[in-house]
């Protein structure tokens, strides 16, 4: 009853090609945006920002990026953590090197630099596929972390080897540094997320996205219809790394404020983002958000239930939490390999005919 497309006719191809062809979806989308921009900033507090919303938004950008590469173009990457580190260190060098330039440009430029690095490490993808490519990107992960640990220039030769985000403002409001307010950092990240999601959707709906998907589904057939495989793969690496770089920059500058590269951008981060897109749904924009939300919220939720409600000791709860998350990932791979996005798709198909399925 609530979810109908009857009477929602399309009379031209433009309407048929919209992102949300069903009116109900469209309203839901605008309502979500309105709440995110107009309600949440007024009720947000430090706990919600730091434990839930900021990591969710920032990981959402990273999952969008990895989903373009792995979900849309079919190139497995285990180098996400390394590329996030590139974004973070590029942002740090730009912030300290050009303190007068607005942080917004630093973040975008950091994305651009990461895109260039991503293309460089994407070059082997023309020759190697599947697991072998995954191993090659793993090399990128370890090399980049090693590089940022060893070469002092990247962390401005600070004694601790850490990088610390100096205070920067947008429209006079602090968004980085130790004294930011929750609503400002939240809004700053939200704007980046909305723009990135919009860009990702646009790039995947047209000829560029079809090139990627063609390479993913059958690269020989893709070549025969005129797709240059090198070009398609490298653009996927570039766009993906751009998003991942932005998320790395935000992760460092806005969320953490101080970063020790091996700890924050290690191999665990690569796997975390990979799990997010697998659980969320490969090749789906919505799935990127769902996966990020799931893996950010689940540990918080479990911790609250186990230590808060049940009153278990923290260390025991932490271990149980690992086990539950791991079991859930396995369960997902077995029961719904196409992820949360597919569950949502199936739900929608059921809802359309509810309550009188034929």
């Amino acid at each position, binding site marked *: 009853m609530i979810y109908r497309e009857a009477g929602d006719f399309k009379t*031209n191809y433009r309407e048929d090609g919209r992102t949300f062809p069903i009116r109900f979806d469209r309203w839901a989308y605008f309502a979500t945006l309105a709440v995110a921009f107009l309600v949440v900033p007024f009720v947000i507090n430090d706990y919600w920002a730091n434990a839930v919303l900021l990591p969710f938004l920032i990981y959402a950008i990273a999952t969008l990026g990895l989903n373009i590469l792995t979900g849309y173009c079919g190139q497995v990457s285990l180098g996400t953590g390394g590329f996030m580190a590139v974004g973070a260190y590029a942002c740090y060098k730009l912030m300290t090197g050009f303190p007068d330039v607005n942080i917004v440009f630093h973040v975008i430029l950091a994305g651009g630099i990461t895109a260039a690095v991503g293309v460089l490490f994407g070059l082997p993808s023309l020759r190697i596929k599947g697991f072998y490519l995954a191993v090659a990107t793993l090399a990128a992960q370890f090399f980049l972390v090693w590089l940022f640990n060893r070469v002092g220039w990247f962390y401005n030769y600070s004694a601790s080897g850490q990088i610390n985000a100096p205070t920067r403002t947008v429209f006079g409001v602090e968004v980085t540094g130790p004294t930011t307010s929750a609503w400002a950092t939240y809004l700053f990240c939200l704007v980046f997320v909305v723009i990135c999601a919009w860009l990702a959707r646009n*790039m995947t709906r047209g000829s*560029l996205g079809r090139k990627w998907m063609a390479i*993913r589904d*059958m690269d020989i*057939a893709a070549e025969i219809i005129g*797709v240059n495989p090198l070009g398609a793969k490298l653009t996927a690496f570039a766009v993906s790394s751009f998003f991942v770089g932005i998320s790395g920059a935000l992760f460092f500058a806005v969320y953490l404020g101080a970063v020790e590269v091996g700890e924050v951008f290690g191999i665990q981060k690569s796997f975390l983002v990979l799990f997010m897109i697998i659980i969320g749904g490969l090749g789906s924009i919505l799935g990127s958000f769902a996966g990020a939300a799931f893996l950010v919220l689940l540990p918080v939720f479990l911790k609250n239930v186990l230590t808060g409600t049940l009153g278990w000791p923290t260390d025991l709860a932490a271990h149980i939490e690992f086990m539950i998350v791991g079991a859930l990932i396995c369960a997902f791979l077995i029961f719904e390999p196409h992820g949360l996005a597919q569950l949502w798709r199936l739900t929608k198909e059921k809802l359309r005919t509810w309550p009188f399925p034929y």
Partner: protein
Amino acid sequence: MLDDKTGEYAAEDGTEAVVPLMEMRNIVLRFGGVVAIRDISFDIREGEIRAIIGPNGAGKSSLLNVISGFYHPQEGVVIFRGRERAPMKPYQVARQGIARTFQNIALFHGMTVLDNVMTGRLTRMKSSMAAQALWIGSAEREEIENRGKVEEIIDFLNIQHIRKVPVGRLPYGLKKRVELARALAAEPELLLLDEPMAGMNVEEKEDMSRFILDVNDEFGTTIALIEHDMGVVMDLSDRVVVMDYGRKIGDGTPDEVRNNQDVIDAYLGVGHD
């Protein structure tokens, strides 16, 4: 034939000059010690349906792969539109206006029928990455224009009802038709069909034959096809090349080929009654 001395086309008796759309000359293709194609020469004239037949392993598919750029012959030249073709990658061949289908369906299984057919238009979609990212101007216009053309093809092949269905869910016969649609969406000058009727029942074969004839009629597309069903081949094609062990053993109209003793020995056989 292309005359070596003058560089111009002349019929062998010197009367009329017909420039074939594509000519293969003395093609030799080896894989290590195995010779897949030995010294094959033939041409494909504009607007005709040209069949390539022969027993399994005769080198028919290898020949198609030479045309579409997957294999590069060790000897011989491929002449397209009167010009010798340098060794090319498959995607460059596609951009010259040569489309093909595969023996084992090579569709994009994760995409809908519509998206699959739209990929056939990729060589014609030129809007920049920036325009697409922002979805302004050329990107959207191009998408809508090409969608119009794709819908014509979808109409033509009668697959409107499965437009938004993921290809992975379709039955075999429809997949074959979608693959033809994808090749047609490129509006090719030369269409290569590798066993378009393999594994089909009689009705599906009839449908497919009609589509092939219609494509040839309505769009004037030149077609080269590999097929094992002799009834279909003899009915559809204007001229037939027969291959055996990588050699050409016959070339001509269906009637000429049918009565060629070499072809009968190697492939057609004789009725025992």
